[in-house]
């Protein structure tokens, strides 16, 4: 059986997707990227192959994407995460209609991509290096509040007050804002909602730069955070389309591209 792999080596996690010729997902894996991107990517690809009961020979083409894409020497091709994200989102979000706008929050960056009717990237915007409003920001905030990052959603819905404004555009300054809010005896849940709304405002500003069209799709790890999703939807005044497994869309896009590239050979 011919199968294809897409590997998204991000700043916080490595995502691997293996698909077959019918574009069905045979298996996927998410692992921390740690400090040795290349080693972990290789190890996890081998593990995943074992899990789905496939051999290396079955893997016809591999496309890598994400920050560490160039370090993964086994890849037949590399592609930027923006293109891969667009392809993956278009496929994973079929059920929602034609996706024209993608919002993606990653470990280190936030992106907004706008697509044309055929799904090609027309325009995109990315945060300029600083980590405000990214997954990293949620990590930092959760650590300061002494809760797990996966608990943020829960806390969001506990809040009964108005969200506390977090105004800093820098992750480090925002952390000190959180500290001073804690110092003023504000509740953790109210601070959490404040964080979510501040991220929502930032990402919407970025998305407006590329234009908001039709179905707005949201993916990346932070899309699992229901509180953040609610904040973005509230600020946007519209519903978001979120796939079942929002972390792996970019890797899926890379896998689809691997299949297409293999067929073009």
């Amino acid at each position, binding site marked *: 059986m011919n199968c294809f792999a897409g590997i998204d080596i991000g700043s916080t996690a490595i995502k691997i997707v293996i698909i077959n010729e019918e574009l069905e997902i045979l298996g996927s894996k998410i692992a921390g990227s740690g400090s040795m991107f290349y080693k972990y990517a290789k190890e996890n690809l081998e593990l995943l192959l074992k899990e789905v009961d496939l051999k290396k020979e079955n893997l016809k083409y591999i496309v890598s994407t994400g*920050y560490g894409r160039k370090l993964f020497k086994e890849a037949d091709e590399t592609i*930027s995460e*923006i293109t891969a994200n667009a392809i993956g989102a278009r496929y994973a979000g079929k059920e929602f209609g034609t996706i024209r706008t993608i919002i993606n929050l990653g470990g*280190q960056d936030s992106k907004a991509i706008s697509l044309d009717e055929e799904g*090609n990237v*027309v325009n995109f915007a990315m945060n*300029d290096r600083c980590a405000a409003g990214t997954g990293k920001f949620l990590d930092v905030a959760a650590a300061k509040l002494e809760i797990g990052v996966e608990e943020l959603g829960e806390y969001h819905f506990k809040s009964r007050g108005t969200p506390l404004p977090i105004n800093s555009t820098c992750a480090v300054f925002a952390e000190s804002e959180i500290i001073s809010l804690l110092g003023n005896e504000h509740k953790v849940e109210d601070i959490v909602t404040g964080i979510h709304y501040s991220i929502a405002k930032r990402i919407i500003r970025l998305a407006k730069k590329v234009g908001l069209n039709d179905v707005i799709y949201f993916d990346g790890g932070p899309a699992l955070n229901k509180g953040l999703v609610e904040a973005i939807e509230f600020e946007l005044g519209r519903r978001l389309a979120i796939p079942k497994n929002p972390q792996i869309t970019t890797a899926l896009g890379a896998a689809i591209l691997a299949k297409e590239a293999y067929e073009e050979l």
Partner: protein
Amino acid sequence: MQKEWGLKMTNRLRKMEDPKTRHRRHEAMEAVKILDSLKNDFKDNLESMSYFYDLYEKIYCKGEKLHFDKPTVGTMCIQVPYEIIYAADAVPVRLCNGFYTDEQLGGEFMPTKSCSLVKATLGMLSNKDIPAAQKLDLVIHPTTCDQKTKAISMIEDMGYEMYHLEFPRVKESEESREYWRRTIRKFTKDLQKELGVKINRKKVKESIKKVGKAQKIYHDLNELRKLKPSPILGKDMFLITNAFFFDDIEKWTEAVKRVYKEVKEKAKAKYNPAGKRSPRILYTGSPPIFPNLKLPMMIELADGIIVADESCSANRLLNDMVSVDEWFMYDMVDSIADRYLKGCTCPIFTQNEDRKRRLKELIIDYEVEGVVYQSFAGCQVYEMEQRSIAKEMESLGIPMLYVESDYSPAQGGQLSTRIEAFIESLKVRRRKKR
């Protein structure tokens, strides 16, 4: 015990470099790194380009001195008329700088939010051992952007002799034209006094021809970039134009002639230094100055090719020639003045229709498929103008990528992702058009 420690300390201090030597060493390290990448990261380099690689190595890595036999005049912007300086038997050296080392140094006494180029230029000038600053008899400063204008008094405090060239901010009016002409006439007189030389008709005529020759061969070479595939990489063109900042103009002209010959020869066989499907890019905005060529290099390493540029360190520098009707002293000086005002497409002007027009022309003539617009963080004029240029590009249906950057080498990962995604989207666009 105490004594021993003290002794050890003095020995260590004695071994330590003085800050000026360290500054020079850091600059050299930066230059070596970029030169290596320019030479080795691209497939078959042009043979004739070795003149330029060697030139940069001599000046920036080995610290060789510039033009020691002639009076040297530093220039702060492209509006300084080179023809007049050559007519005064002096050599112009452009001081705009691209070193991260110098940007860091300038950051010690400049506002954090100021532009990288201005910071780096002042950082460089603060150490008089640096080649470009070694022997400056005079520094000429056209009153262009606010940051440079305010930086002047700081340069003066460093002990350089400054000359202010009053530059108008509106170029469409007859008043500004007359004002600028008067500025240049006065400058011609003052320069003679400053340098103790005589500028006459013959010398001005000669220097107009000398600069004209350099422009002519540059235009010829630039013309070759219109070919499909374009036979020369943008990174080489930037190196060539950057060398015009400080090289002997006649040697420079000869070297460009050799590049032209080689490129023309290679172009006959449809030579393509880029990839098969490389999108044709127009570069504009804040000037890439050696060694800060990171953005042009990133574009071409991501499989794009820069076929045209509109920046004051490249095309804008050599774009228009002096056109003279009558070869009398005042006619020539006025014509020179006109060239530097009317042809200038600097964003400091109140209105900038001319820059839009020039960009449009370049897009059509060079069959450009995408525009990369760089603005140094802190360079307000380019940051502000970005919006109107983006609108213009949208109306033309040309995708534009706006990048805000500085001289920091740490920006690599994210920037290259953006550049790659942009190039990928241009490739898809092209496929669809077919």
